[in-house]
């Protein structure tokens, strides 16, 4: 190994260690505070206890809210992935008039609807459609906001897949839907997985929409319940919040591990242009 190569290698490992430290450091609190008898805002070596966990498991809102989050995130994810895949494929393969302009316009409009100022229109829309206190309402509103970005990203994927398979499948008499299901979906699966995880993460963290549209405590998702661990004066109950944070994060982490081990977590996976 030449000195220059050695230097390069040392440099590379140093950089990677710095990256690791940068991304790991903030996560410390999540690892210590839930098990601390007297958690404070700073990460510190815990005086180990499982009391916080026990207290949380006794809180009926906590576990139920995770189930609700799964329902909301699952529903939204299914809708976003299905609808955006179909739309992205069609937009990628067929030149519809005004396609690009439309996509950009929708992408921009989505920023209005995901902001705070649109809450009155969204609320009144849901109210008129009798979708207040209905999970379906939350799912539809969230899906509407996420679809443009999802289509945008997925169209990039489908643009990058070779069309030769589709041509031969067509020669052998496969219908367009069959082609999409058996040829295109497997090719863009890493993209679908990415969109799926992304949409779940967006719903999982969204507070405002479910808070405004849902009423029954039985339907509150974790993002809303997270905000209830404050006292009358607005002080956070750190024991509950840190423990709940851990519990609240686990499902998305598990989903991520599952998806990344199954599909790999990247764009244009393995496709060489």
């Amino acid at each position, binding site marked *: 190994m030449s000195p220059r190569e050695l230097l390069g290698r040392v440099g590379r490992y140093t950089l990677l260690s710095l990256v690791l430290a940068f991304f790991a450091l903030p996560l410390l609190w999540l690892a210590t505070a839930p098990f601390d008898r007297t958690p404070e805002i700073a990460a510190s070596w815990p005086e180990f206890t499982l009391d916080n966990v026990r207290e949380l498991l006794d809180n*009926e809102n906590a576990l139920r809210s995770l189930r609700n989050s799964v329902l909301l995130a699952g*529903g939204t994810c299914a809708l976003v992935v299905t609808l955006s895949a179909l739309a992205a494929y069609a937009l990628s393969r067929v030149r519809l008039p005004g396609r690009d302009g439309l996509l950009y316009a929708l992408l921009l409009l989505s920023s209005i609807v995901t902001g705070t100022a649109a*809450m009155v229109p969204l609320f009144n829309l849901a*109210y008129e459609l009798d979708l207040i206190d209905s*999970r379906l309402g939350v799912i539809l509103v969230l899906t509407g906001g996420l679809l443009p970005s999802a289509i945008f990203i997925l169209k990039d994927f489908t643009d990058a897949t070779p069309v030769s398979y589709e041509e031969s499948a067509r020669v052998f008499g496969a219908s367009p839907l069959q082609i999409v299901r058996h040829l295109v979906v497997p090719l863009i699966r890493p993209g679908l997985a990415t969109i799926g995880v992304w949409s779940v993460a967006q719903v999982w963290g969204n507070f405002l929409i479910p*808070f405004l549209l849902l009423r029954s405590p039985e339907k509150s998702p974790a993002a809303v319940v997270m905000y*209830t661990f404050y006292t009358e004066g607005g002080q956070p109950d750190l024991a509950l919040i840190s423990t709940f944070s851990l519990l609240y994060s686990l499902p998305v982490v598990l989903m991520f591990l599952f998806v990344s081990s199954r599909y790999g977590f990247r764009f244009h996976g393995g496709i060489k242009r």
Partner: protein
Amino acid sequence: MVRTLTRRARATIGVAVAAAALAACGGSDADGDGGAVRLTISANAVLDGKNTEEAAWIEDWVIPAFEEEQRAAGVEVDVEFEPSGVDDEQFKTRLALDLQAGSGPDIMTLDGIWVGEFAQAGYLEPLPASAQPGGWDGWEQIPEAVQQLAAYDEQLYGIPWGTDGRVLFYNQELFAQAGLPAEWQPTSWAELLDAAEALGELDGVTPIQLNAGTAMGEATTMQGLLPLLAGAGEPIHDGTGWTGASQGLVAALGLYQDVYGGGLGDPVLQQETQGRDRSFQKFADDEIGILVEGDYFWRSVINPEGGTAPMEDRDDTVGWALIPAETPGAGVEGRDFASMSGGSVRAVNPASDQAELAYELLTFMNSAEAITAAAQDSARITAREDVNATVLADDPMLSFIADEVLPLTTFRPPLAEYPQVSVLLQEATGAVAAGDRTPAEAADEYAAGLGEVAGGAG
């Protein structure tokens, strides 16, 4: 495990899960038991979360007791509680969204400061005769000052049920170390500053915590500037308009300059997002000498039982005193001392299908028996004097608020622009505390800001 499933089976499961998720989401609950009249109560309270005592009281006491009473009278009522547990601003937003659409709960709990703007918007209506003074005997127990909480433009829109008051809390141990008396009652701002100077001699002690800046939010206005302003003889709103860059405002901001410019307070703490929580913790750790707060601080923060910054020796170490006027007699209406109060109000939704029954429930919830039940387990200052006399008897601090503070306290003007005005005041205190502006400059900026708020508020 998953690997053994075939591709097709996985796909089927995926679709089934998605379909189930969607199906489970559709449709709202079928309406309760047939025939029963249904009422909903909403409050920013939730079991095991924010205001858990209030939630428990509604679910475990109010609902069964009211349903029982009505059943005895031959009416089947099904009362439901719609809990919440979020920031007050978020709760208010959702409630207003409900009300503007003509829906919402039958009975709602409001911060008293919202009454005016809700009434202006038509979200609340004046009480019917049956719940007015004369129609409902509970009003005789509610002091005139506290009645203001539910009033707007000479009309009552709801019934107040709880209130509070602000005082100076001080650490008697630190006072002893600094050679100050254990029983302390300053009668002017100068005396307050003298005590702070003496505390400044102690190592590792911040003499005084006077909330400043926007990070503390409304706690800056309520526990900081407004009591000082009242002590300088100046109301924030004189009934026709906001008072602007008045002498009193410059004087009040001058006290901020004395505290933070003179090294008697910690200006960085005021700007931290968690600054208020940290100030509580520091007081509990004997690192802050004097702290201006409401009785909430006593009940829920330094309470050795269940407080968020418990002080084992609270009852022996913590003293309290009235907030003095600038000089004796300089306060509003010539008072020697000043305080601010807020509180909550319950009201009936004008869009309720069952208004008459809802008003019955409202007065029921404010009866002596109900309020006593609410304050039994966790003593707090209620709107009713008869209840206070019994439930506060064991707590000298809360009795002090009820007996000494409430008679001289002031309330905020219940107007829609108030939150913006409050932010302007917070900015003024923040600029002075950070040393960026003199009191006069900050007061002028406040007055300029008022012009924009009043212009935009119509």
